[in-house]
Every structure is written in structure tokens, then in C-alpha cells.
């Protein structure tokens, strides 16, 4: 891992079009600004990991098949009808 020391207000650049600026440090928290082109996805790591895992779970869906979906819907409807008029 490349380790650099920067002062507040200073930046680092990654490639031609990514720039990270260190804005503020308060105790153990650091605020940084990130400029990157729209196709570069920037996420907090923990939320990135959580969503990734959830997507993988959803795609597996315990092998939900097309024919079983209406059954799930029926089960769900019963649960939801308690607080909603229709689904």
C-alpha cells in the first residue's frame, strides 16, 4: 500500500481524472472530497460490501423459480393486507 502524508486542503490525484482532497480532520474522523468521472463508482466500503452481499443473496434467492413467485405473493399479500389496501 502506498502511504502518503497530506495537509488539510491538499489533494492527491489518481490517474488523469480522479482527485481526492482532504478537507477536515476532527478527532478520529476525516472528511474528504472526491472528484471522479461519473462512470467511476465511489462508495463507503462497508455499504458497498453490504449491498454486494445482498445482491448475491437476492440473485440466489434460495432458488426461487418463476412458478413459485405467485405463491410467495399470496403469502405476502396476507401479511401486507393488514396495513395496505392492495398490493
Amino acid at each position: 500500500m502506498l502511504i502518503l502524508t497530506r495537509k488539510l486542503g491538499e489533494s492527491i490525484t489518481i490517474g488523469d481524472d480522479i482527485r481526492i482532497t482532504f478537507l477536515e480532520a476532527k478527532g478520529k474522523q476525516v472528511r474528504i472530497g472526491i472528484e471522479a468521472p461519473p462512470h467511476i463508482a465511489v462508495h463507503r466500503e462497508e455499504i458497498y460490501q453490504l449491498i454486494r452481499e445482498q445482491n448475491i443473496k437476492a440473485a440466489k434467492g434460495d432458488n426461487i423459480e418463476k412458478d413459485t413467485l405467485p405463491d410467495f405473493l399470496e403469502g405476502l399479500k396476507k401479511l401486507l393486507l393488514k396495513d395496505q389496501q392492495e398490493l
Partner: protein
Amino acid sequence: MNIATSRFGEINVDESRIIDMRGGILGFEHLKKYMLRIQNEKNPFWWFQSVDDGKVAFVVINPFITNADYKPVIDDNDTKLLEIENTEHVVILAIVTILQNPFSVSVNLRAPIVVNAEKKIAKQVVLEDQTYPVRYYLTPAGSRDETSTTRDN
């Protein structure tokens, strides 16, 4: 063109309906082309089927059905990436996770799939608003997978 899918068998794909998933879905970044499959008009659960890999499909739902006051904020970067000029053409889909044992159904409100329906461009957008959970359960608390090691936000 025809593609072989694990759930629907061989299906015909109308190429004008293929959605270009910019950046892909997290965990499935290599898959860029999807199509929306509505099995039955009365069923609010739709399928978001990968065109590149017939084995990959997500169950999706219009999140406004489950959360009438849902207000996802799409930032400027994503608006630009999705070439959104008119919000009328924006369709929001939330990925549904259905687990059978124990039975639980949850909706990902934190990272919806935002579709520019006119231009057929989509992205899974991670919302800044941390109050929207990755797992918004439609099923009662008793039937959840409590062995999960991840937190809910």
C-alpha cells in the same frame, strides 16, 4: 435474439428493450445487459433478467408499492450518467431478496436500480440517505435470518 435462461427456458429478447446497466449491479459488475420481465400484470414482483448470463435474474418491485413515501435522491453524477433529462422517464426498481428457510422477503431501499426508460440506461444507485435500509422486511421479524453476519445499514 434468443437467450437460454435457467428460470424461463429459451426466451426471445427484443433488442430494443435491452437495458444497458452502467457499472453493472454490485457483485455482478461483468453483466451489463438486462431486460425487465413482467410475468403477470397483477403480480407486483417482476424479474430483472440478465441477458449476458441466463442464470442471473433478480426479483424486483416498484418500491413505491411497499413505501408510498419513498423519496430517493439521485445525485448530479448519476443523473448525468443516466442521461436523465426528464424525470417522467425514470423508473425505480428495488431488488427483492426472498429466502425460504426461514421465509423472509426484504426489499433493498438503499440501492435501487434507477432506469432511464426512454434511453434504456440503468444503474444501481447507492443512496446517500442512510435511513433507507438495505433490507426492508416485508415479512414479520420472527422469520428472519438472524445468523447473518452483516448489519442492516
